[in-house]
């Protein structure tokens, strides 16, 4: 693929200070992600996958190096601007407990649209439609506690994609799901990728995700070790 990169990571490092010890979570990562890619970050525990995703999402600040999203250097943005960038360009799915417990499935799904200030009727329609797209038609009014783990993750996916972001970052979205639910979730995301051209980046240990991905970036010790495209 040679489309314009949506994400450019250059010589990125991130050190964490734990007492007197410096943990070097990222030690110089270079990576481009093109629009429409479906990428899995794989690697052993502690290799820096979550750290890298957080950096790309502007949730955390690098020790050195740059992250460029859609032409914007995150280092040049303040906290509020990074927050706006996430709101308008990036969708997030985390490993678990993604949802706001006091809001129903559809209210969760429309949360980002609401933050963006979309009119109530329009965002509700879009949230309902998106929930249907992830296979949750009819469950709009359930609270997260009334949904299974797989269903909750699909609500989180719906929330991440309802706002049609340029990029969806997912950190081990299938880790807490049984095999069948995991399969279904991956299939849903692969379909969204194919049909809508949404860009996905996953951090995962799950071979199912790896199999579905068309690009696998292998990490070890805070570095990219291998970059495979299928």
């Amino acid at each position, binding site marked *: 693929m040679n489309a314009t990169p949506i994400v450019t990571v250059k010589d990125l490092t991130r050190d964490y200070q734990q007492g007197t010890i410096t943990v070097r979570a990222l030690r110089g990562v270079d990576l481009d992600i093109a629009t429409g890619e479906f990428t899995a970050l794989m690697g052993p525990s502690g290799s820096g996958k979550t750290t890298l995703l957080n950096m790309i999402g502007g949730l*955390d600040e690098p020790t050195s190096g740059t992250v460029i999203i859609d032409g914007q250097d995150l280092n040049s943005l303040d*906290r509020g601007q990074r927050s706006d960038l*996430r709101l308008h360009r990036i969708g997030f799915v*985390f490993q678990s407990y993604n949802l*706001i417990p*006091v809001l129903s499935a559809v209210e969760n799904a429309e949360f980002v649209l609401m933050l963006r200030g979309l009119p109530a009727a329009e965002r509700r329609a879009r949230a309902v439609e998106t929930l249907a797209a992830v296979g949750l038609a009819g469950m709009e009014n359930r609270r997260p506690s009334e949904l299974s783990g797989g269903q909750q993750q699909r609500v989180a996916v719906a929330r991440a994609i309802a706002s049609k972001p340029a990029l969806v970052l997912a950190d081990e979205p299938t880790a807490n799901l049984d095999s069948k639910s995991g399969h279904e979730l991956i299939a849903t995301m692969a379909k969204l990728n194919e049909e809508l051209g949404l860009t996905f980046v996953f951090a995962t240990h799950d071979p199912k995700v790896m199999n579905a991905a068309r690009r696998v970036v292998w990490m070890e010790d805070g570095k990219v070790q291998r970059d495979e495209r299928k």
Partner: protein
Amino acid sequence: MLIFIKLATRNLLRNKRRTAITMTGISLGLALMVFSNNVAFGSHQSMLRTAIGMMAGHVVVQAEGYQHKPDSKLKILDSGAMADAIRAAIPNATVTRRIYMDGLLISPVASTAAVVKAIEPSRERKVIDLDDKIVKGKWLADDDDRGIMLGQDLATRLDVGLGDKVVFMGQPDGTEVESRLFRLRGIFRTGSPEIDGFTALAPLSAAQELFQGDDPATQIAINLPDDKQTAARTKQVRALVQAVAPNSKLEVLPWQQAIPDVVEFVKLDSAYGDGIWLVLGIIVSMGVINTVLMSVMERVREFGVMMALGLKPRKLAAMVLTEGFMMGAISALIGIILGTLITWPFMSMGIDLSGDMGESMEAAGVPLSMILYPEIDWGRLAIYPFIGIFFAVVASLYPAWKVTRLSPVQAIRHQ
């Protein structure tokens, strides 16, 4: 904005018991505050009413400078005509004249310093509220210009009984020493040592004989049916006095200026009460801080997710404050209704303190009733909701600030 209210409501309902306990704390604190303020307000109002009747009037007319430095030499001349003119202008007011004289009261066996308050008996009786405090004898008659009434302690010191002779001796007009013989008609007891120990009541006509000049009086007191009229009536009387006696030097004062000591006492006493409630408010706020902080800490991960989705920390803080605001507003409403309901029965029943506090009380020279009748302080009632909301919101400030310090990464790692 709507979503914040929705989220705040649902989050408050999420831990119903905790919310209920916090809100009960605020409500009860406020209810107690409303009730105790109503009691204080009632007693202050009653004290002011007594002081206005006994020591001044809603509006008083005096010789210029008398308020600053009381001296019986300073007098209003042709006071009867002036009083009549005021009566004609304000028909529903009770207008009464007084002379205050310092001097000696002498009985066959003793003598003592005293203040003689010379009055128009039947008019004064309407404003002084002394009837149920007469322990011996009766109120002065209008035509009895030898009659005198004494405070109980004064009568004891002079060792006189009803019908006994009492002589007043003094220099009321600042010229010659004058004296006059009275006979004791009645003894009163108010509970105020100042009044019971040093005050005598005599007819105005008798006192006037000790002065030069026509129809003198120290003070014309105007008692109005409603205190709300005081300011307007003061202006009216001032204009009237100018018109009736343009050359006399007189001052016309509302009661606030005529009895400043009493007004000051009430202010101080209220401020003291407010101070106690401020401390209580702070203690209740500590509890609120604790519950809000607990509920925030339970939701750290949730907040992290919201921040990751693009919710600004400042809005997150607004959400926490909205929760405090709603808790404060609802509890304030409940507290105010509760406090008013508790006050209600006591407004007619009164709170009898005579058992605990002895037989009588006085403050700033004003005898106080031993039965407190709370009154609803409407002016304050309108402020209480804001007090409740203020404390709840202020108590939420710290947790809200903590939320803005959260790093999304740490928050999401938080389990």
